[in-house]
């Protein structure tokens, strides 16, 4: 009977709490990093691949993102939000940097446009498969005018000012519509 107690005790901590995970990562614990990768790489890869449709390039970004997470974990501040949110923003920023980089822009010019343009999402390249997962799936359920704005700001990384110029909509309207779109997004996922 006593051994049952031990067995139960031992099986308790196979999954880490976020707090435990962060503490172990700060100690440079490689097993904890392995767990972090196994647990979060699909979600982060999903978001990266929604921004960088080329799977190989998305994979490169994912690799850099995890190395950066390992190097910069001491900058994570739990007071400002969850670990996943922090990692998600690192992944999104890295993916946007990638699509804005010159080599990426050049590679786009060499692709036949007709095969890759998803007209519904605007005149940029989107792999239809990645539209059915994660955040994109919810965003696709938004009204067109809202979805375009979220697409441009969240997935393309355009500032409100850039969107205002791009779509010829007043800046105030861009802001209001993005805020409205975001509150709708919340009601859809919560």
């Amino acid at each position, binding site marked *: 009977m006593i051994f049952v107690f031990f067995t139960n005790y031992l099986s308790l901590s196979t999954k880490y709490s976020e707090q435990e995970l962060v503490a172990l990562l700060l100690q440079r614990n490689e097993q904890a990093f392995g767990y972090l990768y196994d647990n979060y790489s699909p979600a982060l890869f999903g978001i990266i691949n929604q921004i960088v449709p080329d799977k190989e390039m998305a*994979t490169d970004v994912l690799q850099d993102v995890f190395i950066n997470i390992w190097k910069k974990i001491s900058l994570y501040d739990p007071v400002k939000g*969850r670990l996943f949110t922090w990692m998600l923003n690192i992944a999104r920023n890295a993916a946007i940097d990638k699509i804005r980089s010159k080599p990426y822009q050049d590679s786009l010019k060499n692709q036949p446009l007709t095969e890759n343009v998803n007209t519904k999402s605007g005149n940029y390249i989107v792999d239809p498969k990645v539209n059915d*997962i994660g955040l994109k799936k919810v965003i696709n359920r938004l009204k067109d005018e809202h979805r375009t704005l979220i697409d441009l700001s969240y997935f393309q990384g355009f500032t409100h000012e850039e969107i205002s110029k791009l779509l010829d909509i007043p800046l105030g309207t861009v802001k209001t519509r993005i805020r409205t779109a975001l*509150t709708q997004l919340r009601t859809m996922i919560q």
Partner: protein
Amino acid sequence: MNIQEYISNGIVESYVLGLASAKERIEFEKMCTQYPEVVKARDDFEQAIEKQAMENAPVPPANVKEKIWPAIYQTPALNTSKIISMEPTTRSSSGLRWIAAASIILFLAAGYFAYNFYNQNKKLQNSNKDLEAKISEKDSLLEEQKIINDPNVTVVSMVGTKPGAPSANIYWDTTSANVFLVVKNMPKLASEKQYQLWALLEGKPIDLGLFDGGKDKIILKMNNVQKADAFAITIEEKGNKGGPNLEQLQSIGKTKL
């Protein structure tokens, strides 16, 4: 400002998704320090986003992880040996810091003694004997330090099962099976009682030896063990020959994650 209006105007989502401007971010972080309901709304949305992002997420190609590891290993580690901690909120244990400091001091001291011994060999026959004795003493300590600093050594942090319970680190060389117990805090026991260290393997306890309490920051060489799922410390009758008394379980630490 009406706080509910503030929460429902989309700022929470903008902030979490990284779409807020610098000014909005600063304001939002300030609101978080003042209004728990803002933090609650942020946390709820963060969890919803996390859940959504995890759903049907595509598994990246298997070779990505392999490519990441070399970069991870190149990063200067804070601790060279593997640390398995049961104290998630503690960044590094005071025991380890003590050992690191002690090993540097011992290293410098041994170096100093050796240097003196070499130079003054002929002049100072008498003091040489004294120094030789000191060197051998330091050597045995250095041997222990070497074990502790060995990358094959797994460090298991033993955490008390209740506040004020004894705490210790175990340095376990999984290749040689040596087990060292570094006591951080072991309260003194009644004279007929002793602490006992156990290894637990597949639910069965293995006796690793008895020791007395009352001495802190000492290194004890315990019995060897090749395999263990966890280590545990109990309080037993002096010279206990039987199994562990689990009602007196003091500390436990897992070896695997």
